[in-house]
């Protein structure tokens, strides 16, 4: 694995900006579920909005909107674009 210093956790992506998915650090069912929804390495994801109390956050993935919690999004590495 090449180390990319530009990678940040998905949870730190600011609202309105987009990124490409890098490594997914989650395990088990959630890892699977995330990939089933089309969040696979290389996919473009846009950060859409946060919930009224700051969590969860809604992301646009392949034309659909998916909400993830901070803790889970934190374990997905992304490259901002």
């Amino acid at each position, binding site marked *: 694995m090449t180390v990319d210093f530009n990678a940040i956790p998905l949870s730190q992506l600011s609202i309105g900006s987009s990124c490409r998915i890098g490594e997914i650090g989650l395990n088990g*069912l959630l890892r*699977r*579920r995330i990939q*089933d*929804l*089309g969040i696979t390495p290389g996919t473009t994801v846009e950060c859409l909005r946060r919930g009224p109390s700051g969590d969860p956050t809604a992301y646009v*993935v*392949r*034309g*659909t909107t998916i909400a993830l919690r901070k803790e889970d999004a934190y374990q997905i590495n992304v490259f901002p674009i």
Partner: protein
Amino acid sequence: MNKGHKMILREHFGIKAKSDQYVIALAGNPNVGKSTVFNALTGLRQHTGNWPGKTVDNAQGSFSFKDTDFLMIDLPGTYSILTNTVEEEIARDFICFAVPDVTVVVLDATSLERNLNIALQVMEITSKVIVCVNLLDEAKKNKITLNLPGLEKELGVPVVGTSARQGIGLDKLKEMLYLAVKEQVIFRPRQLHYSPEVEEAIAQILPKIEQLGLSDYLHPRWLALRLLDNDEMLLRKVSAYLTANSDDDIYREVSMAL
């Protein structure tokens, strides 16, 4: 596979198809309008609404078209049939082991890419797939235009466009189901292109799987992928096939394992 076998397996899923009824499964992502299609065709009242996850169990209803009887099964919506959550297992096991005569995969026209994922997965298990691209009215509102004949060519299975809530396209769907069960449709599902490493792994294990002699029941390539994916639940069920001696037993054993 003869009728008797199918009956035993279907019984396990609580499917009470009469011997002259064709069994049709409705699969697809959550919230794409499966139950709406189901209600429109069967006249029943399954719960519908705009949020994912309303249908949590199989529902069945019948309808007839041109003197042919169909039994339709409304499956829970799933994002995939590879993961082992309860709903996905219900859907997967049904498609895989209850052997519907045709599986209709309902897709949301407004998010085709995500929806194709499950269509492609189902097409790896069974070739008798009809793709129903629903919510075409919503797509139109969002100024999305789809080339459905093109999609049919890409997928190699029949594609029908519908707006189920408005009742548009459902006659075409019935017609297509009719043609399909009367074997007047040729299904040539697209073979998925995997990356070289996956193809290589498949090639390594495929000969062994073919020795199992299960090709009549399960696509070897699909089984290979499940093995490579370490899908233990599925393997337990497959092994039930193997412990049985006669064909009849096979189905009893599998029902037990399910």
